[in-house]
């Protein structure tokens, strides 16, 4: 079980009146084991920041993150990774000289066979033999990098996997497969999956939906409860128009 208590993440920001920006602001959240939870909410609401706090990439300013009863708030990224936390970045990192196979082997924690590496790649819809020897750099397309990023998390197979907008940049055909990948993961690892997404089709397969806005949980509940409320509002288009300075 993942418990987040009164979590805050503040950064210095000269644009704020007090010089401090509260990116995550006293956030409370509990995620039960084996659940498929989708976090959604407006751009800039703090979703990626929260995921990075859980992975240990962002340092918490205040509050606690508790994994299976153990306080991990002060633990390093490596320690959390070893305890079973995985994170697929929203923007995959480029490496000069590191190949796809290398990254998958690092992720798996052992020198997995080419066959197994290919298996992970084909699960994310990549024709494996064309990719294993490629460098993980800008010569791969955005969608390809995104799928490799997801494959690294698959190769880890940990009890808590967080995916930050995994569908972004992935074409329609693969989208169906991606959903299969998540459903498969749930079955095989019996782990908890947190997916950050703006996609209705991903929201549709969630057990639970969490809406994050202004660094706080605005809404949390079962899909049946939350989804109608989300779709019922014309929130997204309203906000878009406000941002563009137009009227509905």
């Amino acid at each position, binding site marked *: 079980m993942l418990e987040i208590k009164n979590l805050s993440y503040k950064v210095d920001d000269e644009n704020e009146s007090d010089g401090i920006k509260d990116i995550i602001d006293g956030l409370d959240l509990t995620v039960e084991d084996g659940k498929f939870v989708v976090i959604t909410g407006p751009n800039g609401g703090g979703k990626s920041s929260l995921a990075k706090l859980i992975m240990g990439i962002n340092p918490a300013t205040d509050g606690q993150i508790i994994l299976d009863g153990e306080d991990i708030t002060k633990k390093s*990224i490596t320690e959390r990774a070893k305890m079973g936390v995985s994170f697929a970045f929203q923007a995959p*990192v*480029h490496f000069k*000289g*590191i190949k796809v196979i290398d*990254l998958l082997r*690092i992720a798996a924690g052992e020198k997995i066979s080419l066959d197994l590496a290919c298996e992970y790649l084909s699960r994310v819809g990549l024709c494996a033999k064309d990719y294993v020897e490629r460098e993980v750099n800008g010569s791969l397309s955005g969608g390809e990098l995104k799928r490799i990023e997801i494959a690294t998390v698959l190769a880890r197979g940990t009890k808590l996997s967080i995916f930050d907008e995994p569908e972004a940049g992935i074409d329609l055909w693969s989208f169906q497969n991606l959903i299969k990948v998540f459903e498969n993961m749930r079955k095989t690892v019996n782990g908890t999956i947190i997916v950050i997404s703006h996609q209705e089709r991903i929201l549709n397969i969630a057990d639970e939906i969490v809406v994050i806005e202004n660094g706080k949980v605005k809404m949390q509940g079962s899909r049946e409860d939350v989804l109608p409320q989300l779709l019922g509002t014309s929130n997204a288009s309203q906000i878009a128009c406000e941002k563009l300075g137009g009227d509905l």
Partner: protein
Amino acid sequence: MAELDVIQKKILEEVADLHDVPEGAYNIRANGASAARNTTANIDIVSKTDKPGIDIIIKPGTKKESVHIPVVLSESGLKDMVYNDFYIGDDADVIIVAGCGISNCGDQDSQHDGIHTFHVGKNAKVRYVEKHYGEGTGKGARILNPVTEVYQEEGSYVYMEMVQIKGVDSTNRTNIAELADGARLEIHEALLTHGSQEAISDYKVALNGKKSSADVISRSVAKEESVQSFSVSIEGNNECSGHASCDAIIMDQAKVIAIPRLDANNVDAALIHEAAIGKIAGDQLMKLMSLGLTEEEAEEQIVAGFLR
């Protein structure tokens, strides 16, 4: 190879991937003298009479043959200087492996200065691999100062791979190349320095021929207090294309200097230089740590990949 002892054999393995006598033509130089030599029907090796060194003569049209000319220094305090001249005949297609390894367990400096000159005939293809390696527990420095001069005739192609990853305290590398019509040169340098090592690389490429082209690519990592300096100068004297790139990772208290120079002396000369020096990107470290590596392991992986 009766003359080679265990240490020398080990160094040979490091610099030339050789476990024993190589196939094809070779000349093994150990502690300032020729230790073993083999020639083939197409490749002749002749000792110079006026100065230390050898002439390697490759007949026109020689295909798929290799020449190994490793140098091993295992005696402390030895200062070795050698001239190797390669004459590569027209249309030949060969691999030349030249490595130099120093094992210095004494307290005096050991130094090897190799001057390699390549005369590459028309439409010939050469792949040149040069590895440097140093080891030894003594206080004596391990010094390597290689010079390569490459003269490429029409339509020739030269690929040079120069690797120095370990144990060499001081290197001053000078590379000169002149290219005729349609000739192409590719240089890949991989360099890792640590401790108080110093490495200087200086490349001068003259693109004299029409449609000649050159790519000079350096990837380097400077750790601890080491210092690297990379200068590259490409002269475009005709319709030609030249590209130089210096990509360096800097760590700890190291220093890296990149000095590009492009001389376009012809309106159809297209010359590009890129240089990027910076520490390991934080997001690269974090990604690998999120896969379970420690920070040190992540650094190792990033450095190893970068220098591959």
